[in-house]
């Protein structure tokens, strides 16, 4: 099983082989957990719930997997859609409440964060401020080391657009995190 490609394993899963699914789980459970953890407000229990739900969805949608497609991008695109739905639910729930994102500008946010919080919180605040798309790009590129082509397939967006968005996001982050150069020196 370990020598098989993801796509071959998925073929076996479609044939009802549970050991193949377990092998896929062994390969992807950790990066997927990290993905959900970053995407869903660093809530580990929620990330674990989503990991569970994702594999159930994979079993339900296994017949939809096109054999010519790369398995990992197909799986991450399902994960991406799950996160988008969760963002929508969250937005609906907090629409009447005062929330962290949506108010004030980035500079005010950074100043506030500089005074009271750590680098991590600043980054999280900034990603929240920039929205779901920016967070997705950040996690796929930095957390999971995906190529631009893979990201393009996962979020269903042209490669050129992905590159320009990644570049401008990097510039914004660099500007916002400029004050935290000391973090690395520690």
């Amino acid at each position, binding site marked *: 099983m370990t020598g098989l490609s993801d796509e071959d394993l998925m073929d076996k899963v479609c044939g009802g082989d*549970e050991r193949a699914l377990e092998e896929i789980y062994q390969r992807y459970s*950790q990066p997927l957990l990290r993905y959900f953890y970053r995407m869903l407000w660093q809530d580990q229990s929620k990330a674990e719930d989503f990991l569970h739900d994702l594999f159930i969805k994979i079993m339900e949608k296994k017949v939809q997997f096109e054999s010519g497609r790369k398995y990992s991008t197909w799986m991450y695109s399902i994960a991406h859609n799950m996160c988008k739905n969760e963002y929508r639910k969250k937005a609906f729930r907090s629409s009447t409440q005062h929330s962290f994102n949506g108010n004030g500008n980035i500079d005010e946010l950074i100043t506030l964060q500089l005074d009271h919080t750590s680098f991590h919180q600043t980054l999280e605040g900034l990603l929240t401020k920039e929205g779901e798309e920016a967070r997705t790009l950040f996690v796929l590129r930095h957390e999971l080391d995906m*190529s631009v082509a893979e990201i393009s397939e996962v979020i269903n967006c042209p490669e*050129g657009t992905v590159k320009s968005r990644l570049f401008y996001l990097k510039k914004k982050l660099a500007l916002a995190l400029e004050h935290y150069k000391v973090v*690395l020196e520690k």
Partner: protein
Amino acid sequence: MENFEEFEELLRQRSYAELTENEKQWVTQFISSEAEYESLRQADRQLNHYVTATRKLTPSPKIWAAIKNDIAQNKKAAKVYWLNTSIPAYATLVLLMVVGIFSWYGGSNYNSTTVYEPKIVTHIDTVFIASKPDTIVRERIVYLKTYPTPAIIQASTKRLENMPATKGINMKEKEELERLLVSGSR
């Protein structure tokens, strides 16, 4: 933005001071100054440092157990899927009409008296068919040659009366006679 990934690679590997003149010329399509390059490089390093924190995240073993359990439950549910299949409204309507008609028909005959005639079942294993013969065949011998009937000869001989001169002897007398003749004496 075509060479964005190469630019990121340069950011990771070398500082602006380490770039060749050609590379410095090349990076100007992305940045406008050395300070901007260094700022992006610093942000990149910080982000990489940031994401290493989540590398330690590992999924709980309970998740895979829960996934396996749910898959088994879904398989069981699939077996009785036909029981839970939703029926279109028109199909339900047709079904109700059919049931209604049968109920009405059964109800209308509820009070009627049904006379059952005894049914005699006879078992016939042989059938004789008698019919009047329309042809009678008679056999008769027909002689082609006719022979004359022989004449009847009537015998009219008279029965002779016992002659008086003849007198019979009995066996005793015959024996004594023979003895006399042979021995010559008596």
